[in-house]
Every structure is written in structure tokens, then in C-alpha cells.
């Protein structure tokens, strides 16, 4: 392979075009585009192919993360000497946010949920204390 180039200082362009042709067909280019279309189009098809590969790689990585976390969640019950009644951790309720906006929204929702939880806790605590009912006190110290 390639020995023909050593014998001929100027390789046939056609030969190279035919060698590259299957690759471009595999990434979605048509016969018409490759042979008769704008010759620069191949660059953009290559770039698009690169982006598709990156996206696919991201998706596979994310899938791996979900699987890893799912395994971690069930890990406590898989333990041979797990205590009786051990339960697995729940699987993530929502998909992981992928965008910056999604991350911010998730954080805000979490903060809001924490505030609600704290409020409920302090209200329950105050109710348990059975504090005397609040009376209005005037400026001279007398109860009204």
C-alpha cells in the first residue's frame, strides 16, 4: 500500500478521491455532494462528524455516571454482611442538569427546599415549647 506513490512523483488525484470517498459516504455525504458539489463541503462534514463524536462521547460518559451512581445506591444491600433491614439509597429523582441554567435552577430549588424544611422544623420546635401567648405592651410598661 502506498508503493505506487514512490514510482510516481505526482499521484493521481482521482485515486485519492476514491480512497477518501467511503469515509465521506459513512459520515452522511451524498455522491452528488462529494463529486459534483462545492469541494469545500468535505471540511464541514468532517467538523460535523467530530462534533457528533464528541456529543456521543458525552452521552456515553453520562450514561456511565448514572450506572455508577445506581450501583452506589444499591451497594449497601449488596454487602454480604449487611445489617438486617438495610435498604438501598433511592435512585436519583431527576436527570442531572446539563446546562449552566439547569444547574442554577437545581441549586435554587434545593435552597428553597432547605429553607422550607428549616422553617417547618422551627415551627414545630416553637409549638413544642408552648410559649405564653404574646401580649402587647405599651410604652409605659403596662399590659393593654
Amino acid at each position, binding site marked *: 500500500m502506498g508503493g505506487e506513490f514512490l514510482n510516481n512523483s*505526482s499521484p*493521481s*488525484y482521482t485515486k485519492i478521491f476514491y480512497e477518501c470517498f467511503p469515509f465521506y459516504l459513512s459520515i452522511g455525504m451524498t455522491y452528488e455532494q462529494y463529486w*459534483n458539489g462545492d*469541494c*469545500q463541503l468535505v*471540511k464541514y462534514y468532517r*467538523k460535523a462528524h467530530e462534533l457528533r463524536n464528541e456529543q456521543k462521547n458525552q452521552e456515553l460518559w453520562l450514561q456511565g455516571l448514572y450506572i455508577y451512581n445506581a450501583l452506589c445506591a444499591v451497594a449497601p444491600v449488596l454487602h454480604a454482611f449487611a445489617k438486617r433491614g438495610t435498604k438501598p439509597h433511592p435512585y436519583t429523582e431527576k436527570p442531572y442538569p446539563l446546562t449552566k441554567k439547569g444547574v442554577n435552577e437545581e441549586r435554587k430549588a434545593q435552597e428553597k427546599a432547605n429553607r422550607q424544611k428549616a422553617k417547618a422544623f422551627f415551627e414545630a420546635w416553637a409549638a413544642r415549647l408552648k410559649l405564653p401567648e404574646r401580649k402587647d405592651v405599651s410604652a409605659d410598661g403596662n399590659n393593654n
Partner: protein
Amino acid sequence: MAKQIIFEYKGKEYTLEFTRKSIEIMERQGFVASDITDKPMTTLPTLFAGAFLAHHRYVKKEVIDEIFSKIKNKQELISKLAEMYNEPILALVEEPEEDEGNIEWEASF
């Protein structure tokens, strides 16, 4: 966008361009790329005629010869045609140009 030479002759607009198919046809007819550098002036008419294959395949040879005889600055023409001829092969290895968002401007005075 592929490099093109556009001109008008006898009221008709012509667009000269090389596609992979037109290069294949030219090579099948015996054209060799290295001839452009080895014997440019003898290669020029064939190269010029080959540039018609992409958009004006059925234009008669006599018409192409007539146009060629009236074209000025043939030295410049051969360098442009050679650049255009190499474009389909270079596009297979070059990366797309990235627009960095630079603003082009010109003054009207």
C-alpha cells in the same frame, strides 16, 4: 465556498470551478497535475477548458477556445486555475477556517 472565476461573455455569465468529478474526467483524458508546474503554458488551455466541466459541461470547445483567446493576463490566470485545481484535494486535509468574529470595516472617504 469553493474558489471560482466568474465572467461574462456575449451576454452569458460563466462560472469556472473544479469539482472532484471534473478533475476525474480531466485525469481520465490524460491530464496530469504536475504538468501545471512543469509546462504551464501548454497546460493552460486544457486546464481552462476543464474548469468549464463543473457548470458548463456542454459548452463547445470552439467557444471555450474563443473565450480563452480573448482572456487577458494569462500568467495570472494559470496561477488562479492551478490554485482552484488543487482546492478539491486540499479540502480533504485542511481544517475549516474559523471565524473569530472580527469585524471588517471600510471608510467611505
